């Protein structure tokens, strides 16, 4: 029925859409922006999840792992007997200093043994090039692909490594990736520095000899049978391995690589919801404005259609169709842009996440979701306007619309109006008379400002994070970590390394913290008083001293434990003596990076009954002797690692620039589309409504500029009203988003960045100015004579 009678209207539909092309373009672009982000993030998320799942399944990624001091090989049989363990592999794992001539600083590697009997049953390698090492040849090794690429290591190349204090020259026979190391960063570093840290796989016999581990292992990895109770298996493993110095079995949530992937997936989810929702709301607004306008001008058409016997449904469907058309154009745009964006983001991901292959592909369901969302958004926008059309009784619709009854303002507004010139009064009265329309425009522009405020906040927050972390908290040039805790006396030797200006010790222990039934595994750091290099950060972003007594918790950690100052928590070492103690929380601190617990170094040493033992040192260096320092370092075997702060900063900055930076340009482009779309729509509607008044003004002898004032003025008043709203909205959204993006690794706090607000406001007003300037050109083409012939 609807179909039959709708046919003669179809040509009119196309004409309508063409007539509303500015609105159509605005709606389609805004929808396109939102949906492209939706498709990009949902598609990328699905691609990551699928790729990860396939990779983990195909290469048998471990479910659990445990590292220990040393266990004889026979213990493997005990582990194998644990119910629900499907497979177990014992390994020898350790760290080596590498002497890579291409770089000044020492590089290091994680060494992992390959099983005697061939390929690993768990954490199999995806070989990129080359072959497996010959078990008979002790010097053959495989290196991870990112490391090989960064240092241009080819098959057959030699690599000098200091393993357990002895120098070895390895021959690279293969280059591979592993599901265990999709994301690779050195211990203690957040972001990858592929030229300074890699993974090296060697034969079990060779590595056992190098580490004096013959007939023993120090690392066990497990795959569980489907449906296994993770917790129960872990306890069983701990039962077996406790005697061998295990620090406890842990799951994928504590494996660095998987954890990063999960965080990334979580952030993509946030992104898939937030931005698109924002844009869909605006699109609905724009549809409402556009259709409202068309229906207002087509009152008599509607009356005619209904008088001819078209049903309400047919009339509603007719107008709803143009909205749907907008929606479909927008959904198509968004689908194409989403795929383009997705491919671009996959390129960035490939730099950070090393899968055998990672390609963006959005599923049919993702597109279906996007199209459905587009249709829902335009329908909601259309419903309110269309409802008005349907409600019109034919006779009423055929009669000219009742003139808008303006009213004089009262109170303050009246006094204000009295002081205005007549042109400004027109603006004021129109806004007063059509508050809903004005509100729509204000909200649209405010949302654009809000989006820009949020976009502007991200780089400011990143800059703040980097500057607090690297200029206030960590002012050392390098942090050395010892293989095992050393007596404080070693500081004397450290201070005498070439180029060292000052040195500060620290102690770090892996612990489990418990409060009530809550339990978190974290690191506790012991720091000296009056530190100049590595310091704690208080809530004001300034350095604070470590607690005189008790323990200070990072805010995120305190939140996880539901613990605050004054609460007593339980602390237990996960390795070494496994000392357990109760300790009072003395303060909450705000490190920007990490979420550890902190004590003063003497207390921590006493607590764990190792007074005077330290884990490493922070150093500041004389730049002139940087090379000499590093040359010496490359020959210092007792070091587990050296972290260079400038490099850490660089890798962090690069990660932020690529991730947040790219998103930021996108945000700005999208905000421009949004501000422009809203401004154009509003300007078009205002122009259409005011055409007659503007022509009258021109007839009366007002110049084009003076007539434009009424048009542009209205838009600008609305835009100015939108400014405070947009700033508040942006701030609220920013705070909320920062909270969503918060991870264990870094805590973002929204910072009020006046420059960001200024940019948001200026940029949006510029968009409004451009839109109104373009629409204003219509005043030049006003047909004064024609307009005056028509009755209003």
């Amino acid at each position: 029925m609807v179909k039959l009678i709708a046919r003669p209207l179809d040509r009119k539909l196309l004409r309508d859409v063409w007539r509303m092309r500015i609105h159509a373009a605005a709606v389609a672009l805004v929808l396109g922006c939102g949906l492209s982000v939706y498709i990009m993030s949902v598609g990328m998320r699905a691609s990551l999840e699928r790729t990860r799942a396939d990779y983990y399944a195909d290469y048998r990624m471990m479910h659990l792992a445990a590292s220990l001091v040393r266990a004889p090989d026979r213990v493997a049989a005990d582990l194998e007997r644990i119910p629900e363990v499907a497979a177990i592999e014992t390994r020898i794992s350790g760290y080596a200093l590498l002497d890579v001539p291409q770089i000044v600083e020492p590089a290091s590697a994680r060494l992992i043994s390959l099983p005697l009997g061939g390929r690993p049953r768990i954490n199999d390698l995806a070989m990129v090039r080359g072959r497996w090492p010959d078990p008979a040849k002790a010097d053959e090794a495989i290196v991870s692909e990112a490391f090989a690429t960064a240092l241009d290591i080819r098959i057959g190349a030699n690599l000098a490594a200091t393993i357990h204090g002895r120098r070895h020259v390895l021959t690279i026979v293969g280059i591979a990736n592993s599901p265990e190391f999709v994301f690779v960063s050195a211990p203690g570093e957040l972001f990858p520095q592929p030229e300074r840290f890699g993974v090296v796989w060697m034969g079990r016999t060779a590595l056992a000899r190098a580490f004096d581990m013959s007939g023993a292992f120090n690392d066990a990895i497990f795959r569980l049978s489907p449906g296994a109770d993770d917790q129960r298996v872990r306890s069983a493993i701990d039962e077996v391995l406790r005697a061998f110095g295990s620090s406890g079995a842990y799951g994928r949530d504590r494996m660095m690589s998987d954890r990063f992937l999960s965080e990334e997936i979580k952030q993509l989810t946030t992104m898939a919801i937030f931005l698109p929702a924002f844009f869909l709301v605006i699109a609905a607004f724009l549809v409402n404005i556009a259709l409202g306008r068309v229906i207002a001008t087509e009152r008599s058409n509607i009356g005619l259609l209904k008088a001819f016997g078209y049903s309400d449904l047919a009339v509603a469907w007719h107008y709803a169709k143009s909205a749907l058309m907008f929606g479909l154009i927008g959904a198509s745009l968004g689908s194409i842009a989403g795929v383009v964006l997705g491919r671009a983001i996959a390129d960035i991901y490939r730099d950070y996440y090393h899968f055998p292959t990672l390609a963006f592909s959005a599923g049919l369901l993702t597109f279906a979701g996007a199209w459905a969302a587009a249709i829902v958004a335009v329908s909601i926008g259309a419903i309110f306007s269309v409802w008005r059309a349907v409600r019109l009784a034919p006779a009423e619709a055929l009669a000219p619309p009742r003139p808008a009854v303006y009213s004089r303002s009262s109170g303050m507004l009246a006094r204000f109006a009295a002081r205005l010139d007549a042109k400004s009064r027109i603006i004021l009265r129109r806004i007063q008379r059509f508050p809903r329309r004005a509100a729509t425009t204000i909200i649209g522009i405010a949302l654009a400002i809000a989006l820009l405020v949020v976009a502007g906040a991200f780089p400011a927050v990143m800059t703040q994070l980097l500057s607090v972390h690297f200029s206030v908290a960590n002012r050392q040039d390098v942090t050395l970590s010892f293989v095992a805790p050393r007596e404080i006396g070693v500081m004397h030797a450290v201070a005498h390394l070439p180029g060292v200006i000052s040195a500060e010790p620290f102690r770090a222990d892996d612990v489990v913290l418990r409060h009530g039934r809550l339990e978190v595994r974290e690191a506790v750091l012991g720091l000296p008083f009056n530190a100049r290099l590595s310091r704690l950060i208080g809530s004001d972003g300034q350095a604070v001293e470590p607690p005189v007594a008790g323990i200070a918790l990072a805010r995120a950690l305190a939140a996880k434990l539901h613990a605050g100052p004054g609460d007593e928590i339980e602390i237990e070492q996960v390795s070494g003596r496994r000392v357990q103690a109760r300790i009072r929380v003395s303060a909450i601190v705000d490190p920007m990076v990490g979420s550890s617990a902190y004590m003063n170094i003497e207390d921590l040493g006493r607590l764990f009954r190792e007074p005077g033992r330290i884990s490493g040192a922070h150093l500041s260096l004389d730049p002139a002797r940087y090379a000499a320092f590093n040359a010496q370092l490359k020959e210092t075997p007792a070091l587990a690692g050296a972290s260079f702060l400038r490099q850490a900063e660089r890798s962090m900055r690069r990660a932020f620039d690529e991730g947040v930076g790219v998103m930021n340009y996108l945000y700005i482009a999208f905000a421009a589309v949004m501000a422009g779309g809203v401004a154009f729509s509003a300007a078009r509607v205002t122009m259409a409504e005011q055409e007659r008044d503007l022509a009258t003004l021109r007839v009366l002898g007002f110049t084009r500029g003076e007539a434009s004032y009424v048009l542009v003025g209205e838009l600008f008043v609305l835009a100015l009203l939108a400014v405070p709203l947009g700033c508040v909205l942006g701030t609220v959204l920013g705070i909320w988003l920062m909270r969503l993006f918060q991870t264990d690794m870094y805590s973002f706090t929204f910072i009020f960045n006046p420059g960001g607000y200024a940019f948001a406001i200026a940029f949006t007003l510029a968009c409004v100015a451009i839109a109104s300037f373009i629409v204003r050109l219509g005043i030049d083409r006003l047909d004064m004579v024609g307009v005056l012939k028509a009755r209003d």
Partner: protein
Amino acid sequence: MTIAAETDPSPAFHTIRLSKVYGDGPTAVHALRDVDLDVAQGELIVLLGPSGSGKSTLLNILGGLDRASSGEVWFHQTALNAMRERALTDFRRRHIGFIFQFYNLIPSLTARENVDLVREIAEDPLSAEEALDLVGLAERMDHFPAQLSGGEQQRVAVARAIAKRPAVLLCDEPTGALDLKTGVRVLEALVEINKRYRSTTLIVTHNADVARLGERVIHFSDGRIRTIETNAVRAPPSELKW
């Protein structure tokens, strides 16, 4: 300028072979064909003619709203046909008061504010009270157009046109939408202003009886002036029949 125009002995308007063609080729419409006309300063002229004969077109060209296709239009010593858009706007602003059939008030402004609108760009305007008083609307000053009857709205339009004491009043069917009584009031106001400020006044009408108001009556048809009569005796608006 208003003062200068009043003392200038040259004709207020002088047209030479004024033509207006809409479109071209076989579908071209000749709205005006070679119109030669002189209008004296302060004169009150009534234009009569069938629908589509070109009355509005002429009025619009004289008022600087529209341009002729060929020929010349002079306002005293200035050639309107040579003016740029900007100058025409200025010309309308300084010298012309328009009154249209459909009033064309700004709906968001009260009667007084509609008058104030033109006072803001006029040199030596009447006060809004004076102007509205002249059309007998002093009490309805603070009403919006939607709150006024058609006749009242047209009187506001008249007040708006006269507030700047224009040298020229161009009225296109000012009573077209009004009944006798309100039409008479509007015409009375126009005649009064013409008398008081010596504003050159052209009134287009379909009502032959209104012609008795004018000093001269111009009969239009098919884009041409057919005849021009001079009324020896002018009737006051109150004597008009509809």
